[in-house]
């Protein structure tokens, strides 16, 4: 019986030209979207390699200069770039923060179009200003075309087109009685029809996706977990929409009613709920624009800079006597000591500024974190948002990934700065050992808590809710 039904379904489907055309079109869109992202990813990787290569060259040049100075073969007028002077590390070996998405970067653009992936880490960067890419606001406004968009926005429409009339069609064609006369319950009939359609769509979707990954040169074996998770989410999301469709069919109305209400549900879940959630998040957890912190930050800067130099240093060394002792044992001559003196002040005053503005910055970051956490929680109300976020997480381009990246950058900046500052305060010269032990920036997308379980749970709950409603209506309708 089941095999006959599947056979019939298959014939029905292959006879529906409209469905076939839309399916081919969609496969094309998936290919275009993944290949487009993969192209951008490759360009990005090439850039990363280029930057890393340039850093190696920079370091070698630095080392060569260092050896020449040590051997007395070279002298510098400008001590700021003299490799034995710690400040030259800041001037010449500018580290680069490099963001890395996962191997599945091609499935979702996430926030990678908004944030810079590679940027130089300046020892004293403005604490509230993130490094920006040169951007075109209009491309960002419309957004890019990626697989996440196809899956989240367009695939549900295919599901709807695939299933809006599974029951109403039979009634309208007058074949319902024939179906009822079979030794299968109507519910079993509908569920098997839906399951078949789900299996076909799901298999085709994953196949097209895998194919585009192979074409794009993504290693399937290295991304087994990611692909499995993605397949799981996709299955849950598809099942949710098939479930909604079955539910609407159970209402027993006409096909045209079904399609209208299903598309209404689509607009509601995919467009209306997310925008409402956004408004809710912004209203309940308001974060003032970054520019509002500017006044306080600039006041703090002026305040720190206007204090007497000697006083600033005296106060600092009172708390950090270890530097005085270290400086006393320094091999720097009088001329060098004078140079060191200025930079000591510079580092201490910059640190004072950083300390003065840190409450403002922390307050801002806390508010932002609370807002993002709340957004993450209520996003669970829309399966579309859940899936889109989960896909960004799989791609390693989610908000959480960029937050972690920016935190890693900030931690590294502090480490890098204190390395140079401490040498400066101790009036030490750069040694060969120092050069081997310089802090290195590291970031890995695997360090981020992806919230995969949460996403899976949210999607499952949506599916369960739909199943519950189906059971409820089934009883009411009596099928």
């Amino acid at each position, binding site marked *: 019986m089941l095999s006959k039904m599947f056979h019939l379904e298959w014939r029905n489907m292959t006879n529906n030209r409209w469905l076939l055309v839309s399916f081919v079109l969609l496969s094309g*869109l998936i290919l*275009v*979207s993944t290949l487009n992202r993969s*192209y*951008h990813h490759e360009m990005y990787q090439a*850039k990363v390699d280029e930057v890393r290569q340039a850093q190696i060259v920079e370091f070698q040049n630095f080392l060569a200069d260092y050896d020449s100075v040590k051997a007395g073969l070279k002298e510098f007028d400008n001590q700021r770039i003299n490799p034995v002077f710690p400040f030259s590390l800041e001037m010449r070996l500018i580290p680069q923060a490099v963001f890395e998405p996962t191997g599945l970067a091609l499935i979702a653009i996430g*926030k990678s179009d*908004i944030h810079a*992936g*590679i*940027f*130089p880490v300046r020892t004293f960067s403005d604490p*509230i*200003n*993130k490094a*920006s*890419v*040169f*951007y*075109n*606001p*209009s*491309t*960002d*406004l*419309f957004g890019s*075309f990626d697989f996440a*968009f196809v899956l989240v926005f367009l695939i549900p*429409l295919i599901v709807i087109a695939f299933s809006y009339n599974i029951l109403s069609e039979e009634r309208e064609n007058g074949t319902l009685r024939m179906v009822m006369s079979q030794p299968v319950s109507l519910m079993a009939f509908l569920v098997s029809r839906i399951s078949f359609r789900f299996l076909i769509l799901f298999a085709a979707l994953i196949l097209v996706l895998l194919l585009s990954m192979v074409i794009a040169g993504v290693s399937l074996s290295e991304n087994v977990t990611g692909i499995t998770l993605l397949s799981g989410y996709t299955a849950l999301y598809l099942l949710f929409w098939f479930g909604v469709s079955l539910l609407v069919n159970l209402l027993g109305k006409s*096909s*045209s009613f079904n*399609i*209208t209400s299903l*598309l209404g549900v689509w*607009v509601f879940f*995919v*467009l209306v709920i*997310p*925008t*409402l*959630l*956004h408004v809710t*998040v912004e209203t309940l957890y308001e974060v003032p*624009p*970054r*520019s*509002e912190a*500017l*006044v306080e930050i*600039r006041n703090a800067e002026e305040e720190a800079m206007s204090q007497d130099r000697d006083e600033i240093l005296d106060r600092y060394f009172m708390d950090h006597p270890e530097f005085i002792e270290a400086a006393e044992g320094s091999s720097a001559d009088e001329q060098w000591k004078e140079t060191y003196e200025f930079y000591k002040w510079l580092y201490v005053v910059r640190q004072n500024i950083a300390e003065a503005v840190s409450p403002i910055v922390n307050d801002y970051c806390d508010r*932002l974190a609370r807002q993002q956490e709340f*957004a*993450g929680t209520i*996003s669970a109300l829309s399966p*579309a*948002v859940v899936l*889109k976020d989960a896909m*960004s997480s799989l791609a390693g381009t*989610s*908000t959480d990934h960029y937050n972690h990246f920016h935190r890693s950058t900030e931690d590294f900046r502090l480490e890098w700065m204190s390395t140079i500052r401490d040498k400066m305060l101790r009036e030490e010269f750069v040694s060969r050992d120092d050069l081997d032990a310089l802090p290195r920036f590291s970031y890995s997308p695997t360090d981020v808590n992806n919230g995969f379980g949460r996403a899976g749970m949210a999607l499952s709950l949506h599916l369960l809710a739909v199943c519950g409603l189906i059971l409820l209506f089934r009883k009411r309708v009596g099928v």
Partner: protein
Amino acid sequence: MQAQVGIDENWFNQRDKNPHGAAHFGIYLLKPESRLSLVDRGVNRYAGTAFFVEGHVRNEAQFRKIEDETGLVRFGELTPAYILITLMPLFIILIGFNVFTKEREAGTWRMLQSHDVPLHKLLIGKWAGVTFTTFMLFIPLFILMGIIVSSVSGFGDFSFAHYLMLGVLYSLYYLIFINITLIVSWFSKQSGTAFITLLAVWIVATLVIPKLFVSTAQYLNPLPDTNTVAEMYREARAGGIDGHIPSSARELEKQVMEEYGVDTLEDLPFNFAGYRLQAGEEYDTKAYNHVFSQIRSTISDQDALIRKGSVFSPFLPVRNLSMAMAFTDVNTHWDFSEAVERYRQEFVLYLNEDLMYSSRTGETYLAGSDVWAAKPGFSYELPEMEDVIKAQTDNIFMLFGWVVFSFLGLLTIRQKTEEV
């Protein structure tokens, strides 16, 4: 704007310092929000809001709101423009998809034909019905919105002309969707098919085409990253005078001393440090102009390509025009950015000249509050309607093209039925 007042106070109350130190301290200029941004926020979330004005460097606008946004915003932003441009066509589709199919399905079509009602009258009637319903919803909403927007405080002037223009644009856009809806309803056999087709048209026009064209534009005209821009700047700057490094300006020293007939810089009637800083500044400006014009040209290539999407989607021209009328489009952003750059040059020149003429070479000079207070003022005028229209000719042309095209489409209905 409260924040701008605070920032200005920062500037006026700064301690006494060398004017060039003050140029490094700089000032922030915040981009004002136009009143009509309440209707259409346009690219406001995506473009920076604060420009740091300082010596040596032309900065790109900072603090883009989108950087701190959650992923939710990418689903759409609930603004009047979102409702009026993205969702309103759905309403039109909903009220109009079955105007003809319903008659056919209910069998009333034949009845009408048997009464010899001329088709064009019927068509006009149906068209008027859908149009009337659409505008009965739109016009009161638009008037109400106008009253609210004009009465909210804390924004610039309310420009009635611009608001009215927005209304006209939206109306034209609705006409396009009304016409398409009627055409599809006419050519569809069933209401269901008509609805699916219209929805497909809507999705393609509002979601797929803009994204596809954006991706193509980014593919064909990629923007340079931070490091490439830095390299571009270094190349453009190479060899010029560095205002901070006296040795880079030896030639200039000689020239100036010759011109004034003196033997030492100290004998000059002004402080040569200020002169050198200004000379260096001019190199900086030239290099930045070079870099920015390259980036801007890539961006305008991208925008031009995205505009081509208008051939396939009436959504794009109306989206762009709506932003332009609300002064929240990219052009207004760049216009403001250029005004800031012109001001930056004026600002730095003022400080360098103060150093030049208030002291002699080698002297220690600290400027005070009188100098800070007399800094050049910054003012920015939003572009005139004429300029906006001129910049938007392409989009206006495309929108009218769609209107004409859709009305022509309606005509085909008449021709076809006359054959029958």
